[in-house]
């Protein structure tokens, strides 16, 4: 998937911070990327890398206490979402043009309302009920699309009567009800068993093929990302350190952090004596170090790494990384 004509989503120098008593956490500190229609981009990184905050910024759902967008642009179909009021976001964007599936199926559904009521919500609030169908028929149809067995009967059941996997399918139904342009999947399968996880990944791929929507997949699991993403962005301490086509990222990783991650996880079938262990701890996000944020833990650390942050440089067409090891763009 090389660069598509007009990008579905364009993010420029996004900064999202959380004001806490002990200081301002610069969770997302200058992130840039684009997504083409129908493309799946993986946001890969450890906890605290800013991947979830980035996705929540797009939906303008930053934590109520102190979360705010401190800078940058989020352009979807030509509109800068950072300029839009919250009411307009709810009316015109959330649920209709951008939707979300989050991590824990056990808590993503409201326990005291029926599955039908909740899946019907996007239809009701965006009056997108397909012509000639009743609300109930529309709900049954979308539940069927996410392969929930006998949806007409399960409509009036409550979330606690569904398994983890089934609940995640209900949440997916809510997300695709109004055929959104962009789906944000935040660790959609980390709470599921591995056999159910495979079924969910296949469902996302089929839904994308069916609707042509873009997907941002947020995950810490490099294996999951490899299985479904067209392009992958590796995030560390609030910034993207490397972004590119999925095969290049896994076959020729340019950034030391990406290489270290790939070496530190066990690969099925290739038993090694010892895993590579990245030393130290991720840096504080309240007053991050001036230079490259991975410098303290980087095996190829140089003097310049501690002084200034390396610019993003092209390693190959569509493959960029921010590291002083990479020569300047020739």
């Amino acid at each position, binding site marked *: 998937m090389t660069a598509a004509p007009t990008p579905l989503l364009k993010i420029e120098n996004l900064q999202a911070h959380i004001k806490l008593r002990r200081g301002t956490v610069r969770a997302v500190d200058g992130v840039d990327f684009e997504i083409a229609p129908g493309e799946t981009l993986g946001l890969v990184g450890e906890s*605290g890398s800013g991947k979830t905050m980035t996705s929540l910024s797009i939906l303008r759902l930053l934590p109520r206490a102190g979360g705010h967008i401190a800078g940058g642009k989020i352009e979807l179909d030509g509109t800068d979402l950072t300029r839009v009021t919250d009411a307009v976001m709810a009316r015109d964007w959330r649920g209709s043009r951008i939707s979300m599936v989050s991590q824990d199926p056990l808590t993503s559904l409201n326990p005291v309302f029926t599955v039908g009521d909740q899946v019907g919500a996007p239809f009701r609030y965006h009056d997108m009920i397909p012509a000639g169908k009743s609300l109930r028929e529309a709900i049954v149809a979308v539940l069927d699309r996410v392969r929930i067995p006998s949806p007409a009967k399960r409509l009036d059941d409550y979330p606690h009567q569904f398994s983890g996997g089934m609940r995640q399918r209900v949440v997916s139904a809510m997300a695709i009800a109004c055929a959104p342009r962009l789906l944000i999947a935040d660790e959609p399968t980390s709470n599921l068993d591995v056999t159910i996880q*495979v079924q969910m990944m296949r469902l996302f791929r089929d839904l994308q093929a069916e609707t042509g929507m873009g997907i941002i997949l947020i995950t810490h699991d490099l294996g999951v990302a490899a299985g479904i993403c067209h392009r992958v962005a590796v995030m560390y301490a609030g910034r993207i350190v490397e972004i590119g086509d999925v095969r290049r990222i896994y076959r020729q990783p340019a950034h030391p952090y990406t290489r270290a991650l790939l070496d530190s996880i*066990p690969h099925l079938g290739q038993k090694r004596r010892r895993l590579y262990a990245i030393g130290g701890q991720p840096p504080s996000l309240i007053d991050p170090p001036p230079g490259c944020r991975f410098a303290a833990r980087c095996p190829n650390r140089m003097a310049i790494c501690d002084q200034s942050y390396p610019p993003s440089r092209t390693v190959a067409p569509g493959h960029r990384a921010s590291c002083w090891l990479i020569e300047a763009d020739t």
Partner: protein
Amino acid sequence: MTAALLEIRGLTKHFPVAGGLFAAKGAVRAVEDVSFDLFPGDTFALVGESGCGKTTIAKMILGLERPTAGSIRFKGVDIVNAGRTAMLDYRSQAQAVFQDPYASLNPRLKVKTIIAEPILAHRQERGDVLGRKVAELLDTVGLPASAAELYPHEFSGGQRQRIAIARALALQPRMIVLDEPISALDVSIRAQILNLLADIQEEFALTYLVIAHDLALVEHFSSRVGVMYLGGMVEYGPTEAVYANPAHPYTQALLASVPRPDPDHQPPEGMISGEIASALAPPPGCKFNPRCPRALPICASAVPTRVSPRAGVSHWASCHLLSQNTNT
């Protein structure tokens, strides 16, 4: 074959479900007739999806849950009905590290108290001898001696897990039960802890019983593996043998479903279907039959017996497909 350190025979645990006055009284069959041995120096991994009973087995081995049936013998001594002194002796030789580093350490106690707890419980050293021992343990797990005076909230997840490991080492145990030791940690920190566990196993000749759901980790870390499904053990054997040619259809499906950091790997279709059944009313015969693509009529009626796919190697699986082939 040296004598087994730990022998588990017919271990079963049912949790009664209060059905109230009128509803029928049911029971969740969390663990059903599980037997295996743990040999000195081994790293035996109990693997399986959620609800398969692996954590319940660990709790019974640690004496935190009473089994409904079956026996647990440590160095030949039964620990299920052990008396106080026998139990205390067992405790000094079997310790544990749990999954969540934030819940394993009491936030109100200093690190030195947390690490010294087992030593104090067995009234071994005291005073500055104990102080030196704690400093030694901290050093063994890669933490500065000054950590002793701090509180858990002053450490990261990885550092807290190191403190938990130091505590488990305090009595120089023979066996440590590791319940999902790294699944709550960040990817880059996991390798640090895994390497630490491998180093101390060598240094202190430890035997590990590991509870895990990450099959890639199990292949890297364990020497022997037992695959659990809905309370029963479906396959057991040396890790290489089980991973090289998994005998049970569930093990095959599990291994196939593991996500691999390789963009060209596509999980094969149709290895497994549907959802895990409820442990309140497990399916008759082989519990995996409703989801098994190669289920035979017999699978829904008779419980399969253990069959070794190849003689000699202590690798068996309980599946009718195997028993059909060997005796036809």
